[in-house]
C-alpha cells in the first residue's frame, strides 16, 4: 500500500545522489584534461 | 562634540540625507502599503480573517520591505569609492558600519514602523493590539537591520546583488519573525504575558549588535581589497 512512496523515496535518492556523483566526476575529468592540456602546452613552449 | 563623534554623526546623517533625497524612504513606505493593499486581493476582503491575521501579516510585510531596501545599504558607497575613504578615517571601521546602519535605521526602518499603525488600519487590526505590536517591532527591528546588513555586506561586490542579499539574509530573519509575530498575537489574548517575547526580541537585537558590526566590517574590508 505504501510501495509507491517507498519506491519514490529510493528513486529520488538514487537520482539526486547519482546525478551529483556523475556531475562531480565529469567536472573532475574535465578539469584534469584542461590542466593536462595547459601543462603540455607550456612544455612545448619551453622546447621551442 | 569631539572629532570622532562628529565623523560618526556625519556618516550617519549623510546616509539619511541621501536616503531621503533619492526617494528611498518614500519608496520603502509605498512598498509597504502596496503589499498591504495586495493582501486582501489574495486573501479575500473578509474583515474578520484579516483582523486575525493582521499582526503576522504586518511583520512579514515589514520584513520584506526591509529586505528590499538592503541592497542600497553599502552598494552605492562601494561603487563610488566612499567606502575606501571611510576606511581611512580615525574612527574604527566597525563604528563606521554602525553609523551607516543607524542612518539606515532612522531613514528607512523607523518610517516603516511608523507607517504600521496606518497599514494595520487597512487590515482592521484592533487598536488595543497596536502598542504591543509597535513595541515588538521597535525591539526586533534593530536585529533585522543588523542581520540584513550582513547579507548586504557579503553581496556588496555583486552587481544587482539584491536577490542574493535577500537569500542570504532570509534565514537570519526567521527567529525574529517567529517571536515578533508571537508577541503581536499575545497582545490581545488576555493572560498571555508579552514581556518575555519583547525580552527575546531585544536579546536577539543585542546579540546582533555584538556580532553584526564585526562580520559586516570584515566582509566590506574583504570586498574592498
Amino acid at each position: 500500500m505504501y510501495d509507491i512512496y517507498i519506491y519514490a523515496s529510493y528513486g529520488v535518492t538514487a537520482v539526486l545522489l547519482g546525478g551529483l556523483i556523475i556531475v562531480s566526476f565529469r567536472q573532475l575529468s574535465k578539469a584534469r584534461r584542461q590542466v593536462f592540456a595547459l601543462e603540455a602546452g607550456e612544455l612545448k613552449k619551453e622546447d621551442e | 562634540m569631539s572629532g570622532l563623534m562628529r565623523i560618526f554623526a556625519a556618516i550617519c546623517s549623510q546616509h539619511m540625507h541621501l536616503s531621503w533625497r533619492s526617494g528611498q524612504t518614500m519608496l520603502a513606505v509605498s512598498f509597504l502599503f502596496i503589499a498591504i493593499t495586495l493582501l486582501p486581493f489574495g486573501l479575500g476582503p473578509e474583515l474578520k480573517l484579516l483582523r486575525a491575521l493582521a499582526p503576522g501579516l504586518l511583520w512579514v510585510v515589514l520584513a520584506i520591505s526591509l529586505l528590499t531596501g538592503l541592497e542600497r545599504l553599502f552598494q552605492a558607497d562601494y561603487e563610488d569609492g566612499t567606502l575606501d575613504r571611510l576606511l581611512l578615517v580615525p574612527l574604527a571601521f566597525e563604528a563606521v558600519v554602525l553609523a551607516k546602519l543607524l542612518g539606515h535605521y532612522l531613514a528607512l526602518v523607523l518610517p516603516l514602523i511608523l507607517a504600521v499603525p496606518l497599514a494595520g488600519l487597512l487590515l482592521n487590526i484592533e487598536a488595543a493590539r497596536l502598542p504591543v505590536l509597535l513595541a515588538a517591532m521597535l525591539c526586533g527591528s534593530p536585529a533585522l537591520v543588523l542581520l540584513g546588513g550582513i547579507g548586504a555586506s557579503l553581496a556588496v561586490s555583486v552587481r544587482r546583488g539584491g536577490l542574493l542579499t535577500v537569500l542570504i539574509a532570509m534565514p537570519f530573519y526567521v527567529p525574529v519573525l517567529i517571536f515578533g509575530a508571537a508577541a503581536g498575537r499575545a497582545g490581545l489574548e488576555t493572560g498571555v504575558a508579552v514581556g518575555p517575547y519583547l525580552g527575546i526580541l531585544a536579546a536577539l537585537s543585542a546579540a546582533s549588535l555584538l556580532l553584526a558590526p564585526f562580520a559586516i566590517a570584515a566582509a566590506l574590508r574583504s570586498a574592498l581589497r
Partner: protein
Amino acid sequence: MAETQNLFSNLQHSRDAVCRADGLACARGAITVFEGVSFSLAAGQALCLRGANGSGKSSLLRQLAGLLPAAAGTLTHPDPAYGTHYLGHADGLKAALTIAETLAFDAALAGYRADNDAYADIAARLGLAGCDWQFVGDLSAGQKRRLTLARLIMDPRPLWLLDEPMTALDAAGRALVTDLAEAHLENGGMIIAASHETLDFADEEVLLEPRR
C-alpha cells in the same frame, strides 16, 4: 572658531616621516601582479609610479593606503587612518549632494565643525562656482576632480596617494594640482602618484615592470 582657521593653515608635517617599501609584492588570487618593488621616500619628496596598464600601479597605491595587504615584503608608512589621503579612480562623490554639502561632509570627516563661509572660499579656490546650489551630479568630470582636491586642502595629512591626478583636468586644473602638491612638499609632506604623464612635482620615478 579657532578650528575653522585651520582649514587654510599650512601645517608643517614631521620631517621624520618616511614611506618605504622593501621587496613588496602584490597578488590577485593566485596571480602575482608585481613583486620585488622597493623604494624609499622621505619628508618633502614625491614619487611617480609608472608602468603599463595592469602593471599594478593602482594596486600599489591601495597597498600603501592599507586597503590591500601586501603578498610579500614590508611596507613602512604613516597610519592610514590619520596620515594618508587616497584619491583613487572612484571619487567618492555623491551626485545628489550640492558642492557645499559635499564639502561639509569632507570637513566633518576631517573633524571640523560646519562653516558655510569656509566652503565657499574653498570652492572658489578650486575654481568651482555655485557652491550652495550646484549639484555634484551636474559637474563635469574635471570639475568633480577639482572637488576631490578639497579633501587634501581641508585635512592636513602627510602622505598623499594620487591615482592619475591629472585625468580630465584642463591646464588651470593641472596647475592647481601642481601648486597644491608643491606647497604640500614644502611643508614636509610626501606624495606618491601613479601617472602616465610627466608630473612636475615628482623627483623620482618607480617603474613597475610587467611580470612575465
